[in-house]
């Protein structure tokens, strides 16, 4: 029973960690779905949102505001910062590049990454700032059945709940609203979308705003876990295998991909680690992604593109 208890513990903590990867991956999927652009800047947006939140929060608390009011005001402030970012990106980067090739748009987001990273640290500082929005301790479940119980970190559970709400909301937004339909239309064909009266500039603003808000949500969870710091931008690299496994165009794919990566790397670390040496966590996700690329290049949930010849 001890062995099974240990398996469960590793498996559950892996799944929950995976959900947190999904939160970052979601931001990528949103922009990719709506503009066909792989947004390299998503990781830096998480950093920007996190810094804006934690710095305003600290400032307000130091001024003597009650914590709950400071949290609300801090979240609003960070949301406004993300809205400004979305506006600037649309106005000065994507807007002038309408109807250009996807690769050109991708390159431009690399530029955006550096701009955001630089601006975020210039405005809000470059130290490690601790954030404590969620409890960071753990539950011990089923301690009757298993010796010592199964350790489940509370913040990971919070992350899971938040991700579930976010995904449900986004799915409804994409499927039911005219803006959602317009977003999908823009991804397929810029010119045709314009011809039916979809305002491209507005749609791109909305999609970068939504991606910015998703980045903010990811920042609250990851910031509590690791502290808000520059290395949070490297999350973008972990999101990449998640996207390849789940498929770039699928919201549910981002979730399932995250779960597979999270559980896979934790289980590999625990059970393969003793045989082939530790540190498997750091590369296992990429190997999984490679396998998926070989077997199913569009990802588990991606749209299969069939070219007519």
């Amino acid at each position, binding site marked *: 029973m001890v062995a099974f208890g240990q398996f469960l513990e590793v498996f559950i903590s892996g799944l929950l960690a995976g959900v947190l990867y999904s939160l970052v991956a979601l931001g990528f999927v949103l922009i990719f779905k709506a503009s066909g652009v792989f947004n390299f800047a998503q990781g830096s947006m998480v950093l920007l949102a996190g810094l804006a939140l934690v710095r305003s929060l600290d400032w307000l608390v130091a001024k003597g505001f009650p914590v709950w009011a400071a949290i609300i005001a801090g979240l609003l402030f960070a949301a406004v910062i993300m809205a400004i970012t979305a506006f600037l990106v649309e106005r000065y980067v994507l807007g002038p590049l309408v109807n250009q090739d996807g690769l050109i748009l991708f390159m431009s987001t690399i530029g955006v990454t550096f701009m955001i990273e630089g601006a975020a640290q210039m405005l809000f500082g470059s130290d490690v700032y601790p954030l404590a929005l969620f409890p960071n301790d753990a539950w011990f479940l089923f301690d009757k059945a298993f010796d010592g119980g199964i350790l489940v970190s509370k913040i990971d559970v919070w992350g899971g709940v938040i991700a579930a709400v976010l995904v449900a*909301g986004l799915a*409804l*937004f994409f499927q*039911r*609203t*005219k*803006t*959602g*339909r*317009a977003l*999908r*239309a823009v*991804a*397929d*064909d810029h*010119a*045709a*979308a*314009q*011809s*039916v*009266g*979809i*305002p*491209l500039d507005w749609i791109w603003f909305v999609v970068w705003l939504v991606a910015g808000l998703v980045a903010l949500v990811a920042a609250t969870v990851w910031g509590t876990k690791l502290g808000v710091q520059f290395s949070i931008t490297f999350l973008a690299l972990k999101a990449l295998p998640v996207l390849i496994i789940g498929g770039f*165009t699928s919201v549910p794919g981002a979730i399932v991909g995250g779960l597979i990566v999270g559980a896979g790397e934790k289980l590999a670390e625990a059970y393969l680690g003793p045989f082939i040496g530790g540190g498997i966590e750091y590369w296992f996700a990429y190997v999984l992604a490679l396998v998926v690329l070989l077997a199913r290049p569009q990802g588990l949930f991606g*749209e299969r*593109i*069939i070219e*007519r010849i």
Partner: protein
Amino acid sequence: MRAPSASDIAAGEILLSIENVSLSFGGVRAIRDVSFDIKKGEVRAIIGPNGAGKTSMLNVINGFYQPQHGRITFKGETRTKMRPYDAARGGIARTFQNVALFKGMSALDNIMAGRTLKMKRGFLWQILRVGPALTEEIEHRRRVEEIIDFLEIQAIRKVPVARLPYGLQKRVELGRALAMEPELLLLDEPMAGMNLEEKEDMSRFIIDVNDHFGTTIALIEHDMGVVMDLSDRVVVLDHGVKIADGTPDAVKANQDVIDAYLGVAH
């Protein structure tokens, strides 16, 4: 509603007028000082050999290109700079030479996308699908189903359009334009690449749209038989210059037109 007869059109009200429009891309002069008008309720064909500037003309009309010179007046309003969004708002819909559909979406969703400008409810209402947003959604679906019935594409409404054969894709694209309930419909080679039967179907739809809805149509087409049958008036472009303008019969007999199409002996 009945289609206006030829004499009605001759006397009719001008919906769109193009005056001395010129458009160039760097050194390439795509349109040179072209003027013509489109009257309410007519089918106006724009023809000419390859590279004559026909598609450029359509792109100017719906705001994809901004001409360097000239004036465009639509519904009595002269415009200088216009975006495609404003054109769509004003009631101009179009189809494209190389079908431009939203490939990942179903035929139904593609046509629904044409209703974008007609939907008014906020997105929170649409997510919840209650009250006024529900009524609105049902109303739009009803209009779209009418278009689907009209174009006889009931069987494919849920199929992602990328999987449809070319002729049907063209039909869905026409459906999306019709969903906008346009006053002016621009068709860029609606029959290119079609077989005879598909061409006949498409001709029938174009005539019906013009007859039943009274929609004004401007179309580019290479098939002369189709042009002569469908259109009330024809404008002929060659190398960006207007060389003839008039009824199909007059244009057919015009020496410049014959030279442009067949080449002149030097």
